[in-house]
C-alpha cells in the first residue's frame, strides 16, 4: 500500500475524469497522475511548513520520513506544535489547488 498522511483530504474526482478523457494510453494516464501527485505533495508540504514554527521543521520532516502514511501521528504532532488543528486549512488549500489544476485542462 502506498499512502500519504494527507490522502484522506484529497478527492480530485473532477481531475480524474479530465485525465481519463485526455490520456489515450495507460502510460500517458499514469504520467499525468504522477505529475498531479508531485504538485500536490510539494504544495502540501509547503503549506504544512508555512503553518509550523521553523524550530519544528526538522522534527516534522523526520516524522514524515519515518511514517509518511500515518495521519494520526502526523496530524497530532502538527496540532501540538502549530497550536491548532491544521486539517481544515489544508483541506481548503487542497480545494483551491484542485480548482487551479482544473484550469490546466481548459
Amino acid at each position, binding site marked *: *500500500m*502506498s*499512502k*500519504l498522511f494527507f*490522502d*484522506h483530504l*484529497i*478527492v*480530485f*474526482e473532477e*481531475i*480524474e475524469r*479530465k*485525465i*481519463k*478523457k*485526455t*490520456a*489515450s*494510453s*495507460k502510460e*500517458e*494516464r*499514469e*504520467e*499525468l*497522475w*504522477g*505529475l*498531479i*501527485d*508531485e*504538485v*500536490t*505533495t*510539494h*504544495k502540501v*508540504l*509547503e503549506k504544512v*511548513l508555512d503553518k509550523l514554527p521553523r524550530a519544528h*521543521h*526538522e522534527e516534522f*520532516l523526520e516524522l514524515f*520520513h*519515518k*511514517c*509518511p*502514511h*500515518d495521519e494520526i501521528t502526523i496530524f497530532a504532532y502538527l496540532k501540538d506544535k502549530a497550536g491548532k488543528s491544521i486539517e481544515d486549512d489544508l483541506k481548503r488549500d487542497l480545494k483551491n489547488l484542485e480548482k487551479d*489544476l482544473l484550469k*490546466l*485542462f*481548459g
Partner: protein
Amino acid sequence: MTQPASKSYRRFEEEKVQAEFVRNKLKLRSLEAKQSLFGKYPHVEKFFADRNLDLSKIREHSAKIITAGALTGSLLFTPPLLAVKVPALANIVKSLSDFEVKPPETSPQETILSSFMQILPQKVGPLDRTQEKTLEQVFKENIGINAKATLEGEHLNSTYGYIGAEQHLARFPGDNVYDMAPGLGAWGYVPADNEKWYAVVQTLYLPDWNSRQPFLQNWYKYRKVLIVNTMNGNAIVADIADAGPAAWTGKQFGGSPEVMDYLGGPRYKKGPVIMFFVDDPNNQVPLGPVDYNKVDASGLTLVQT
C-alpha cells in the same frame, strides 16, 4: 455504433494534442511547486537530498515502509482498542462457525458481516497480516472461495479500500458501447470474456513495480480477485484489466459497471471493499457474482448466478 474513420482520426489527433498540452502545463506546474517549496525552505531540499530520497518518489518510500510494517505485524493503523483484540482474531473464525454461538438461522452473509465488525479497523485502511489471514479463513468457510491477500509472494497495494465505478473497456478496435473509457485497458484491448467482470488495482504504486518487469505485468494480467462489499457482504470474482485509480481520488480499486452493479446496485459509485487474489491454479473459479448463500460451508460447491 461506429464512427466514420475520418471523424475518429480527427478526434484522435485532437485528443493527442490536448494530452500533450496538458502534460506540458502540468510539468511546468510541478516544477513551479518544487521551486516554491525548496526556494522558501532550502532545508527541506537538503533533508531529502541527505537521505537520497526524491520527494516526488515519496509514495514508493511509503509503500516500502507499510509493506515492512505489515510483514512484521506492527499495527501502524489500528486503533489501540482493536490492537488489544487482535491476538484473539484467530479464534473468531472458529467461534463464528461454532454451532453453539452461531444460531442455525444465521446466513453466511450475516456471518461475514458479523466477522467484518470484529476484524476490520474502524477506518478503511491497510490491514496487517493477522487480519488478512483471519479474513482468508472467513471467506473460505463462508463464501467457499480460496482467496489470499498474498499469493505466490505478491500482495496488492491495498486489500481493504474504496472501490469506484469504472467505464467499459474497449474489446476491439472500433468498439463503442455506452459508457466507454476513452483509453484502453492496461493490457490493451480486453477480451470480451474478461471485460464484463473486470477490476482495477493500483499496480503503479507497488514498491517493486518498476524493478520487477516484465514479470509483474504478466503476473497481474487478468489475475482473478475476490471482491467483497464490507457493507452488505456481496461478493464477486473479477479479473484485473486496468491500473489505477490515482492515489488522490480517495479510492484504491475500480470495478466495471457490472461489478459495481452487483456489489451495490445501479447507483453504487463508491464503497468499501476487501480485495484478495483468488487462488485458482486450475482456472476453475468462474468470473462473476458469487451467490454464497447457496454454497456449502466446506467450500466444495460453488454456485454461480
